[in-house]
């Protein structure tokens, strides 16, 4: 029950994100969608990911997006068209894609689930330090690069 509620909110917000004229409102709906997403994670049984989602996606990324919106929008922008000429083809393409993916999905037989009662947080932490140590370090490098890059790009000189 709560799944359908969360799913509904998520989907509704997503549709709002892609259709609203005012970009600020788009951003707000995106936040709601991400929050719903986090709820889905919790419902699914992956608490760590849900928390990270809340922390980073909602907390950091959306703040950044809102900053950018503030920096780049003008009052006169509100009068413009929201979508471009490719609406219909895009809709068709997305629909076709969805249709065929779903049909293949309903044709496949998923293997039986193997639930593993693990301590997710401890397990993730251990894995990050052992099996996925290298990607962990690389990610830190990626973040460093993004950090420096963003600063360099936006510098006014």
């Amino acid at each position, binding site marked *: 029950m709560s799944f359908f509620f969360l799913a509904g909110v998520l989907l509704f917000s997503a549709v709002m994100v892609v259709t609203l004229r005012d970009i600020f409102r788009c951003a707000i709906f995106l936040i709601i969608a991400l929050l719903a997403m986090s709820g889905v994670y919790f419902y699914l049984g992956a608490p760590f990911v849900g928390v990270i989602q809340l922390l980073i996606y909602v907390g950091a990324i959306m703040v950044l997006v809102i900053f950018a919106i503030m920096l780049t929008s003008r009052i006169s922008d509100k009068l413009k*068209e929201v*979508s471009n000429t490719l609406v219909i083809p895009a809709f068709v393409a997305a629909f076709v894609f969805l249709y065929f993916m779903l049909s293949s999905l309903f044709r496949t037989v998923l*293997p039986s689930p193997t639930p593993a009662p693990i301590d997710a947080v401890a397990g993730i932490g251990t894995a990050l330090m052992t099996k996925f140590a290298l990607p962990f370090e690389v990610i830190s490098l990626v973040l460093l690069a993004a950090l420096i890059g963003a600063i360099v790009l936006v510098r006014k000189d």
Partner: protein
Amino acid sequence: MRYIVLSLILFCIGLFGIITRRNAIAMLMSIELMLNAVNLNLVYFSVRGGDLTGQIFALFVIAVAAAEAAVGLAIIINVYRKFTHIDVERMTSLKW
């Protein structure tokens, strides 16, 4: 469970958005939607299969999404500074 269906629908919405929206930041937001759909898929299969690899991968995806959003927004700000608009439909200097 049809989390997969959910993730698919979400992905297609994001797809529609990225192709349709004129505002560059809106495109970025649609990208975030798509990434989230993918994350959901990953996490679902991780939970279902008992292997934590999926969740770890989802973490990495989130990290990369953050980095990419930062850089992307920096670029958009630069573009705004140059063109005073971020309407992608008007940015067609590479046209034939």
